[in-house]
């Protein structure tokens, strides 16, 4: 049976092969690297795509490459080793910064890029949503955050901190 390292290796390979420029694990799976486990049924991955011509970003080059690798699709998810992975092009300046400043973690001997705890809190505050806010609060209570770094991110992106 496959394991999560296979998925992370596949993501690293996509980056090495230039199919994506850079990636970072986001969403609930990213929180898991810093807080207690929470249940999720998908793996969100923020990405930078290689430069494209035209004003619209197309996911098609990435999807064709994934099809070529034999991965199946289910709605907007790519099933990598039966794990539903959702690729999301970094959609604004905070998401771009989150990918750029992602932290390289070691997962069972495999390097994996994960959005930093401070950027996860900023993204949760910017995007909102009950689940995200609960996870952000868990991080805020965890004492692992660099408060100065978080304050700088929130100020740079005009995000109101939690009162």
């Amino acid at each position, binding site marked *: 049976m496959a394991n*999560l390292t296979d998925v992370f290796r596949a993501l690293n390979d996509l980056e090495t092969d230039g199919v994506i420029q850079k990636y970072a694990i986001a969403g609930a799976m990213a929180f898991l690297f810093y807080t207690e486990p929470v249940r999720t049924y998908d793996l969100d991955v923020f990405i930078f795509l290689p430069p494209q011509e035209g004003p619209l970003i197309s996911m098609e080059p990435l999807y064709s490459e994934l099809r070529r690798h034999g991965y199946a699709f289910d709605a907007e998810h790519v099933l990598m080793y039966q794990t*539903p992975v959702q690729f999301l092009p970094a959609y604004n300046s905070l998401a771009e910064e989150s990918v750029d400043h992602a932290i390289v*973690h070691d*997962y069972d001997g495999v390097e994996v890029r994960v959005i930093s705890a401070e950027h996860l809190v900023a993204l949760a505050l910017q995007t909102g949503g009950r689940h995200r806010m609960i996870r952000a609060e868990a991080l805020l209570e965890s004492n692992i955050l660099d408060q100065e770094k978080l304050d700088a991110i929130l100020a740079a992106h005009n995000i109101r901190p939690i009162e």
Partner: protein
Amino acid sequence: MDEMVEQTPIQPEAERIFAAKRVWHQKQAKLPLKEKVRIMLQMQRDDYPILVRRGGLRSWEKPWNIEP
């Protein structure tokens, strides 16, 4: 003028339970990554029948058939 809301004091026993829960959550957060993934996969399996009964799951929302 705002009305003063009288807060019910937390009983010492409840406070002790809350404190113990905080410690438990902190311990969970400090588990090795692979163990946290194992717990997450178990949560997927445990919650799935309940979520199916509630309905509204999307096609990809199911336990992952992988090892941690």
